[in-house]
């Protein structure tokens, strides 16, 4: 996309906090929100004589991610030390991967706003540890350091500079976020910093021009703000260059209130990290067995699942998207379908309708649903075999949810079975018509509106259980004849 002759070039560097129980190189816990410095092992505090031990779960998660993006899993990768001094970095170096990362050359399929897809090359993904946190406002005149986060496993995912609009960059970030949550390797909580994206932005005069100087936008923790920040930065760079000024290679922060990026003057631009292979850690060897076991356990990825829902099951793109908002929800839906294979649309309606509303009211997610997929399937079955009207079924659902029961037991207990047999229906119809001769006459005189009222009366008389379709047919018959 060209901005008056300019092409924006954007690459993303995302830090995905892996959802392991313990840290990348120590047994300390990784849970968010603990009391400061209560989840710090001696290794995390870099006490003299401590040594790192790699977390096997984090390695599995990295392999899982690599397989999901069709990347090359490097059988032999190396941990490297990234050396710099900062109080939240206890060792004075971060253990990362430099020349030989564990994952290389993958592709992330991103769905743009207009529905078309673009394949974004993922140059590499590597394992590293997170730093602690500097807290500037807890105490007067000093900065406090909380090391709870120090040592948490991160997967750093780097895209090629292959994005050209802020919207595409945001879509790419969303797609990556969805994937890592889907794979169960990250909880995706942006507010807690589980998923952080930095954007490298530059502009050039057309796709064949050499790349311009880039700036790095850091610390934007929402998809919407990333898009706005990048959009602003593209405009800013174009403005600067058109005015004859040069772009300074620097790190910039996004100011939400002013919708601007501004230079982070406190950090110098050129750090020499003096990377070298970490002598405390032997090369990371990934076995074929590990790769195969992760491959076998790979779930159907969200994009593929959505496509299947639309193409094979005939759902709308919107419903497919909503059902795949989480893997657990999609799995729930498919469990219902497993019992009622030809009820794709009704099942979707129920899951996205009553079930979603109940979960929302309870403030919980699908993992604590009080109606199992099997029970929901049972309820749907009763709406299709004429036992329940859809309206009644909703009441039954509410009872099932409240009491953790299946449909049939609620129906039986409350005598809610829909009346579909002619005999009881005709009896009710005849009683209503006999009781309201004026309205009958009005209808026969041509008043269609009174028909609805008569239907209502029969419904009342049957306490809502009359099968609406059959009622309609029989009532019309009686009124005609």
């Amino acid at each position, binding site marked *: 996309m060209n901005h008056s002759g300019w092409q924006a070039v954007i690459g993303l560097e995302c830090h995905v906090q892996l959802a392991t129980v313990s840290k990348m190189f120590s047994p300390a816990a990784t849970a968010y929100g603990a009391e400061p410095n209560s989840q710090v092992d*001696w290794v995390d*505090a*870099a*006490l*003299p*004589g*401590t*040594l*790192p*031990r*790699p977390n096997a779960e984090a390695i599995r998660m990295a392999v899982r991610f690599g397989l999901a993006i069709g990347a090359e899993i490097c059988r032999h990768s190396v941990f490297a*030390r990234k*050396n710099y*001094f900062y*109080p939240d970095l*206890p*060792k*004075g*170096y971060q253990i990362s991967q430099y020349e030989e990362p564990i994952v290389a050359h993958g592709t992330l399929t991103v769905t743009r706003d207009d529905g078309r897809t673009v394949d974004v090359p993922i140059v590499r993904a590597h394992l590293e540890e997170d730093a602690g946190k500097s807290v500037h406002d807890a105490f007067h005149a000093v*900065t406090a*350091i909380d090391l709870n986060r120090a040592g948490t496993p991160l997967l750093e995912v780097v895209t090629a500079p292959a994005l050209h609009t802020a919207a595409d960059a945001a879509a790419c970030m969303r797609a990556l976020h969805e994937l890592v949550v889907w794979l169960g390797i990250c909880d995706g909580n942006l507010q807690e910093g589980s998923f952080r994206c930095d954007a490298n932005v530059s502009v050039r005069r057309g796709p064949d021009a050499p790349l311009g100087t880039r700036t790095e936008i850091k610390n934007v923790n929402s998809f919407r703000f990333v898009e706005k920040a990048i959009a602003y930065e593209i405009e800013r760079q174009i403005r600067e260059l058109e005015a004859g000024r040069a772009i300074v290679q620097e790190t910039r922060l996004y100011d939400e209130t002013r919708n601007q990026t501004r230079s982070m003057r406190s950090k110098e631009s050129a750090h*020499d990290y*003096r990377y*070298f292979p970490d*002598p*405390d*850690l*032997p090369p990371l060897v990934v076995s074929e067995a590990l790769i195969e076991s992760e491959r076998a356990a790979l779930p159907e990825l969200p994009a593929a699942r959505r496509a299947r829902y639309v193409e094979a099951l005939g759902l709308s793109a919107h419903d497919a998207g909503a059902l795949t908002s989480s893997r657990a929800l999609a799995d729930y839906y498919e469990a219902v379908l497993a019992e009622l294979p030809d009820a794709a649309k009704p099942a979707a309606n129920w899951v996205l309708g009553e079930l979603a509303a109940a979960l929302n009211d309870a403030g919980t997610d699908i993992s604590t649903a009080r109606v199992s997929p099997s029970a929901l399937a049972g309820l749907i079955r009763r709406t299709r075999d004429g036992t329940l009207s859809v309206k009644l079924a909703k009441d039954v659902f509410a009872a099932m949810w409240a009491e953790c029961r299946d449909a049939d037991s609620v129906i039986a207990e409350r005598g809610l079975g829909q009346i579909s047999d002619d005999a009881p229906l005709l009896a009710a119809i005849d009683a209503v018509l006999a009781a309201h001769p004026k309205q009958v006459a009005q209808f026969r005189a041509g008043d269609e509106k009174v028909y609805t009222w008569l239907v209502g009366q029969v419904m009342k008389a049957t306490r809502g259980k009359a099968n609406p379709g059959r009622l309609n047919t029989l009532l019309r018959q009686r009124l005609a004849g």
Partner: protein
Amino acid sequence: MPASITALVAARAAGRISARELVERALARAERWQSLNALITTTADAARARADAIDASDGPHGALTGIPCAHKDLFVTRGVATTCGSRMLAHYVPPFDATVVADLDAAGTVSIGKTNMDEFAMGSSNETSHFGPVRNPWDLTRVPGGSSGGSAALVAAGIVPFATASDTGGSIRQPAAFCGVTGIKPTYGRVSRWGMVAYASSFDQAGVIARSAADCAAVLGVIAHHDPRDATSVERAGEDYMAALAAGVAGRRIGVVREYFGAGVAPAVAAATLAALAVLERAGATLIDLSLPALAHAIPAYYVLAPAEASSNLARYDGVRYGHRAAAAQTCEDLYQQSRTEGFGAEVQRRILIGTYVLSTGYYDAYYRRAQRVRRLIAEDFARAFADCDLLAGPTTPTPAFRLGEKTADPTAMYAADINTVAVNLAGLPALSTPAGLVDGLPVGLQLIAPAFAEGTLLAAAHALQQASDWHRVMPPGAEA
């Protein structure tokens, strides 16, 4: 000559001597030999209490029950100051024990304290310690060698039967040679580095200094095992080194390394070495003349790689979490700069600067990468040599112990004196120094080198030499058996 460790263990077990008597003897001798300055911290009360517990059958019992010892002050000891001979850690009290310390505790030893050493193990004379130099018990105006000078001096003076030590470029073997005792550096990865304060991670190895090969074997057997807390610890079961001693040296081919008899080696030292080798020949070994040309590059490779790793390992000493913190600092940068300038001595600062330089952009390839290649060539030279030999030999040091202050004016002259020891650490091989008589009244050592994990062969050869000679029995004037 004092009784062997095995004999002492048996005597205590049989009730002929108590653990308390052994420790009192050690403490009394330590007191008498205070001028050596071999101990930084003496833990007399704890030692007595422990000895009493052993005598009451309450304490831990193992292969070395009741044996007094001392630990080099870079092995962390829970509740006991661990200084690494540095002002930076002068008051640092660790919350955990090094694996080596825990192993020896569990085996029933009684530590009398922490031995003096070159600061952060950087030195070859024990003159860089913040706590003052250690003196050689053979001649108080001379150095004991370094960096494990305190450990060697304690054993040589008959104060304790053994002391733990560490060897990164010769720091066990060279002081053992200068002090007339036996010191073994195991294969890299044979002994756990957990709790051993790191100097150069791919070179450092924990070992033993004792009065005989048999005593070294007894102690090594306790500490040579896999430790999952150290990712560089090899997954290889421990061995019975005592049983290996009996094999002697019959049929062994010993390669006499021409480069180890270079220009800097004093003729009397060369002669003493050859005399010791003649004893081994009479005991059944075959001597082979051999050249390892890559050894010429060992010193430069070592003094590029070891400082590089050290510059990174010592980055954690910033005054933030533990260790020396500059009182006057107003900003974070000042805190780092002042704490480190005040906390580190000149030699440590020198090596940090060298290490930072060789890892820097623009110099990494010329220095660090090239030195790694040389390292590989040296390892290959040794491997080729071991195709034709079971052991390699040469003088441990070019001269006997020099005088205090003699080499401190020119650091590179000090480095050059490591010529015979550093190649072993570059190749990660096991090696030991065993006494080879006196030159001008001062001890010299024969160095034996074996292939990886052939500590048994090494100890058996030294044991054979010690059974056919008296050099290891001679003690400094004034020392008690």
